[in-house]
Each structure stands twice: as structure tokens, then as C-alpha cells.
């Protein structure tokens, strides 16, 4: 009779598989630098467009900075999410991953954390550039926490939906259409919380938005974890 491995072993295997997938994504990106460079240049172009579209004088900057930052991150994010899943699909990597004898959630968390890392790298470059260009200090620990939580929520849903979008006929066109209406609570609360920190508002004003971000992250991490199996099933 075959005995199933003890649960602690299973957990360790899943963890190892997750790390392996993250490592694979990072190594591939380190060699090609396709995705990060595209996301980065695109982000800077979006900021440039906002610069002309909104006439960012000193007064406007104070209030719209958080909105511009999040719009930039959201647009650049879809670029990265699409690319990251398209690579898996085009070269048959996804089938290989699915054949591997590991839990499917390891694939999901591996891809999601990989995407999160890429998004954070882009943000880590865009923030100082924006600070220099517009002479605004963006290095507030609260703001950085909001950016981390917001990116997490965005990526958690985005990874799941990009795995779906990549299997459709319209592919990359579809991702923003699927993603933006569902991820809207993240964008609303992240913009509001960032704005609160930038304008040095009281914590009591920022707290509801901050909590909402946390709630969204927790709920959607759990939901995506449960649903992902159905998305990649062949």
C-alpha cells in the first residue's frame, strides 16, 4: 500500500517548487531583460504623456501625483503580466510546468511572486525618477507600504486573469478589459492612501483606505489560490 507523504513534507515541496519557478522567471529576465526594459520605458512614456495632458504645475502636482503614479503602474503592470504569461504559453513552458509533479498552487504563487518582483523593480526605478523630475519627495515609509500592498493586490488578480487571457483568441488585448474593473478597489484605495501620505494627512483619514487594501489582498489571494487550478486545467 502506498502511503501519502506527511503534510509537512508536501508543504516543503510546494515551497521549493514555488521558489524554483520564481528563480526561473528571474533568471530568464536577467538574461533577456525584455520585460523589464519594456515596462520601464513604457512607464516613463506614460508619465511624459501625463505631463503634457495635465500641465503639471506645482499646484496640480500636489494633488494628482498619486493618481499619475497608480495609472502608470496599472498600465505598465498589464504589459508585464501579459508578457510573463505569453512566454509560458508560446514556448510550451506552461505544459511543462503543468506536467511537473508539484501542486498547482506552487505554479500560481511562483508566477505571482515573480510578477510582483518585476512590478516592484519598475516602481523602484520610476519613483526616484518621478521625484527628480517633479521635485517631490516620494520616500515616505507609509507610501512605500501602500505601493507594496497595492502592487500585491494588483498582481494577485492579474496573474490569474492573465493566465486566462493568454488562452483566448484576443490574448493581450483582453487582459486590461478583464483586469481593470475587477481590480478597481485596489486602485481607488491605493490612490487615496498614497494621496493621504503625500499630503501628510492624519492616520485616521488614511486608515480606512489602508485597511481596504489589506482586506482586498487577503480575500483575493485566497480566492485566486482556490480558483487557479480551474484556469490551467487542460
Amino acid at each position, binding site marked *: 500500500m502506498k502511503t501519502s507523504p506527511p503534510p509537512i513534507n508536501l508543504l516543503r515541496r510546494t515551497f521549493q517548487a514555488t521558489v524554483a519557478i520564481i528563480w526561473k522567471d528571474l533568471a530568464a529576465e536577467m538574461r533577456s531583460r525584455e520585460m523589464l526594459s519594456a515596462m520601464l520605458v513604457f512607464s516613463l512614456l506614460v508619465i511624459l504623456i501625463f505631463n503634457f495632458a495635465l500641465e503639471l504645475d506645482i499646484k496640480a502636482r500636489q494633488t494628482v501625483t498619486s493618481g499619475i503614479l497608480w495609472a502608470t503602474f496599472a498600465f505598465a503592470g498589464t504589459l508585464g503580466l501579459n508578457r510573463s504569461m505569453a512566454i509560458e504559453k508560446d514556448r510550451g513552458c506552461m505544459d511543462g510546468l503543468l506536467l511537473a509533479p508539484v501542486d498547482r498552487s506552487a505554479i500560481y504563487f511562483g508566477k505571482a511572486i515573480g510578477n510582483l518582483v518585476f512590478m516592484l523593480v519598475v516602481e523602484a526605478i520610476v519613483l526616484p525618477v518621478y521625484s527628480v523630475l517633479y521635485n517631490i519627495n516620494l520616500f515616505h515609509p507609509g507610501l512605500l507600504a501602500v505601493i507594496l500592498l497595492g502592487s500585491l493586490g494588483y498582481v494577485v488578480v492579474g496573474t490569474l486573469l492573465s493566465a486566462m487571457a493568454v488562452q483566448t483568441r484576443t490574448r493581450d488585448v483582453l487582459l486590461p478589459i478583464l483586469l481593470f474593473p*475587477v481590480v478597481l478597489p485596489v486602485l*481607488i484605495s491605493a490612490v487615496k492612501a498614497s494621496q493621504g501620505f503625500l499630503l501628510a494627512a492624519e492616520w485616521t483619514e488614511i486608515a480606512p483606505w489602508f485597511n481596504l487594501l489589506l482586506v482586498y489582498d487577503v480575500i*483575493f489571494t485566497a480566492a485566486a489560490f482556490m480558483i487557479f487550478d480551474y484556469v490551467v486545467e487542460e
Partner: protein
Amino acid sequence: MTPKPRLLAVLDTVCIVLFLIAVGLVFFYAPLERSMGQVQRVFYFHVATAWVGMLGFMVAAGVGVVYLRTNHSLWDIVGLAAIEISLVFFFVAIVTGSIWARPAWNTWWTWDTRLTTAAIVELIYAAYWMLRQGIEDAEKRARFGAVYAILACISVPITFASIRLLRTIHPVVVGGGDPNAEGGFSMTPAMRVTFFYSLIVFSILFVDMLWHRIRLGQLAEKVEQLKLKLSA
């Protein structure tokens, strides 16, 4: 082809009669609201259509869970039917809301909690529809549709909560008395009768249409299978 079920034919007739009564109640039974006048009468169908819109949304998510567990194509047909009907009803709710908002708030549209959420829900329905359009494999189409319906249903209440944190001016007529709401009013008993009657009629109408749409879905599935058989 299976003939139209007897019960469905009865339900159709009942729906038509009940609906005509609802129109009669709205125009002749319900009293004229003092400050808003005739335009207030749109309220009865406005809330009823919005209710059906949300109902279909929840039905689709619930049925989505059942589909993922059972893998039976009937549940997918029900989910698609619910969303298609709700898409239309919700749109009617938005349009009737605009008709009312023009005299009451002096604008067709405002970025209020419910209006914004309604717009987002419509966009989600549209995204759901586009997602299905892009997938040829029927089984995959059903699976992805279910997944998206579930995700959307989790996200919409959070969206509502997040926009609610911003200020709202939409009146809460049933069970709420926010003094800042503009265009709110308290219902007289006759208004209440008309209101709840409309809600019930629209719910029955939803069931009737859902039934028709499910039959259509099943027939479409059958045609699909016959086509495959022919080409094979």
C-alpha cells in the same frame, strides 16, 4: 426539437398580465410625489430593474461555483443566460436612473457610489461577454466564464464599499435615512404596495426570461453538436 413546456407558456401569460397590472399601479394607483412630481414614478421600475440586474449577477456567480464543481454544461448555460438578461436590465436601470436624476439632481450622471458601481458592473458584464467571445473550446469557455463570474462577484461589493468611503448623494429609500441624500422621500402605503409589487413582477419576469434563455442555450448546444457530427 422539444416543444415549449406547458408551464413556461403559462408563465409567459402570467408575466404579461402581472406586468400590465404593474404599469397600471405605477400610473394610476401610486400617488403623485409632492416635490418631484410625475418623474418619481420611474422609481418603481428603476429599483426593480436594478434588483434583477444584481440578482442575475449573483445567480451567475453561484451557478459558476456549481459548474466548477460538477462540470455539467447546463450550469454554464444558466450562468450565461443570467448575465445576458442582467446586462439588459441593469442598462435599463441606469437609463431610468438618468431620467430621474436629470430633474432631481439637475444632472444626467454623477460619480456617486451606486452610479459608479453600476457602471463598473456593466463593464464587468461586457468583459465577461468579450472573454467568452474569444474562446472557441466550449468546455474552456464555460470554465473561464465561471471563474470570471465568481471573481467579479467578490470584487463588486468591495468596489461598492470603497466608493462608499467617498461621499454619496444617492437616496436610500428602503431602510435608510441619510439626511445628506438629495431626492429622498418617504413612501406612502400605496407607494409601498406598488414598489414591492414591481419588485416581485420583475423577479418573475427574470425567471421567465431565464427559462427562455436556458432553452435557447440548450438548443444552441444541440445545433453545435449536430454541426460537429455533420463535419466529422
